């Protein structure tokens, strides 16, 4: 009953979580819903237009596009979730260490993230992914290397804020162990904000992975992956426009749903998050926004511009 009441109060969130759940189900049950084997090449069926046999048509090797897109959902969703969890764990872990223990470790971690934030994302990712060798695993490593710093900075500033509170001082005074303070007091307090950040990140991570695959530095054939499918379809633009329309549409829909889902999750969780933490998260968002404007520098006096934009 509680759930029904909750959904009634947050209708937008309810609808979006159903849609997100639907995508997850598609990813999970792709083998059941698919009409064909996505790897099976039937050369005489090559480049068939969408029709009864092949809902979305076929590609140049005669593989069924509909089935490949369904399997592509699991490729994209699973790699995006793996990636977000890795970044989350590494970034949060290092951020907490930096914030709680300070000193040299903090210096090193923060300087590295300063360098990362003053570099164009995709270029660095391409360089790392390309040098390691093209594969989906290496693409995940490359994006991790570039993106963990965001969570580290956020976790660090949250820890620094909580450390000033009375209950931490009380815990210390009563002689609590470091591990006890970390697990019982720090972690539960910073978790909600970090989860919101992770949820709003899924969409852009899916996009990044797709663009890497599109450039040939991500998933390798014959893995069904949307970005790679688009780059394959590029050669047959004139003869087979469906190779271009459907994978692109799939990326677009999934990214939009996850972006909106993350936003509404934030709106719901936000009232429970106190003001100061909110402003910390906002600052991270500003950092990200600066990156979106494709250029940043740590010591940038344009900070007021960005602050003012996020009012």
């Amino acid at each position: 009953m509680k759930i029904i009441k909750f959904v009634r109060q947050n209708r937008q969130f309810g609808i979006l979580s159903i849609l997100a759940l639907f995508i997850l189900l598609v990813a999970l049950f792709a083998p059941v819903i698919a009409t064909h084997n996505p790897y099976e090449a039937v050369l005489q069926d090559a480049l068939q237009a969408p029709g009864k046999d092949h809902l979305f048509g076929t590609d140049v090797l005669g593989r069924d596009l509909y089935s490949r897109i369904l399997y592509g959902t699991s490729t994209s969703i699973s790699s995006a979730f793996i990636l977000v969890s890795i970044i989350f764990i590494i970034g949060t872990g290092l951020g907490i260490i930096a914030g709680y223990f300070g000193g040299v470790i903090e210096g090193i971690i923060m300087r590295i993230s300063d360098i990362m934030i003053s570099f164009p994302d995709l270029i660095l990712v391409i360089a790392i992914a390309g040098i390691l060798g093209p594969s989906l695993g290496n693409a995940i490593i490359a994006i991790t290397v570039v993106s963990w710093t965001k969570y580290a900075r956020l976790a660090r500033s949250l820890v620094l804020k909580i450390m000033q509170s009375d209950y931490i001082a009380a815990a210390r005074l009563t002689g609590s162990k470091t591990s006890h303070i970390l697990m019982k007091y720090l972690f539960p307090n910073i978790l909600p904000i970090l989860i919101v950040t992770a949820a709003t990140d899924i969409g852009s991570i899916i996009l990044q992975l797709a663009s890497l695959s599109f450039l040939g530095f991500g998933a390798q054939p014959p893995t069904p992956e949307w970005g790679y499918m688009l780059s394959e379809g590029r050669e047959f633009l004139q003869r087979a426009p469906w190779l271009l329309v459907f994978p692109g549409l799939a990326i677009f829909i999934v990214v939009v749903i996850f972006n909106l889902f993350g936003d509404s999750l934030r709106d719901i969780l936000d009232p429970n998050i106190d003001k100061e933490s909110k402003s910390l998260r906002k600052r991270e968002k500003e950092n990200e926004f600066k990156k979106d404007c494709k250029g940043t520098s740590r010591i940038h006096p344009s900070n007021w511009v960005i602050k003012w934009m996020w009012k």
Partner: protein
Amino acid sequence: MRYISTKGEKILSKKEIIQRLLQIIIVLFGVSFLTFSLTYLAPGDPAYAMYEANGVVPTQQMLESARQSMGLDKPFLMRYFTWLINCLQGNLGTSFFKHKEVAILLKDRLLPTIQLAFFSLLLTLIISIPLGIIAAIYKNRLADYIIRGLTFLGISMPSFWVGLLLLYIFALRLNRMPVISSEFGFQKLVLPAATLAIAMSAKYTRQVRAAVLEEINKDYVIGARARGIEENIILIKHILPNSMLPLITLLGLSLGSLLAGTAVVEIIFSYPGLGNLAVSAVATRDYPLIQGFVLWISLMYMSINLIVDISYKYFDPRIGKKEVRG
């Protein structure tokens, strides 16, 4: 003594500018060392890859002589210092695959990249300023909703999909524009620039809207209105100049990355820009080219950021007038 503007940002003093320049040099050393070690640690043998790319299966002897001529047989630090000394003398080395000097390869791509960067920024401004103003004036009315919906679409669509769709619609269906921009000219610039401009205008439109909305309720606007000045004149003479300031910062930032090359869009349209060169360099493990490119981007990025910081004073006379002890 520090100069602090009315809005709180620091104005760079001469000393700080010199500090920033020093910082740029230090970061360049760091970046060059990092890329050098990355290429050293990377799996795969560029000598083998070179023969493979030319369709030859190399013998052991051929591989060794190729490694020698590429300088791959020397120890890591020695390779780095040789490269560094050459680099300081303006010699970035020779590409493994194109057998041309890296500096020349980069220079050849510079003009198309600059053209694409400026043209797409121009398009972005042409689209986003009017749309942003309209959205702000008709806040929460139909026009505003439509424009906001469009910006949402623009932000959510992956750029490679937009590029391919434009390619399909304009180049193939309408047969108006050349599909592949092998040599540059105004026409060949339009589609790649439009692809970049669609994503950027979505963001810029929101900024313009927010900027105009911020100014529209300020005291001086109400004052002007009270004096009976026409709405259009208030908009053009008072609101616009004030709300365009933050845009200059954004433009500087966007320019920095556009000049680093926009790999995805350049690949789609086979545009001969830096991003395209970088992707092919990475794909073929052309180490000297990768190093030269990364060095170039870092330099580009940091110098443009510095120039933007310095230029504030000139764009907004208010900044820097107020002197505060700090």
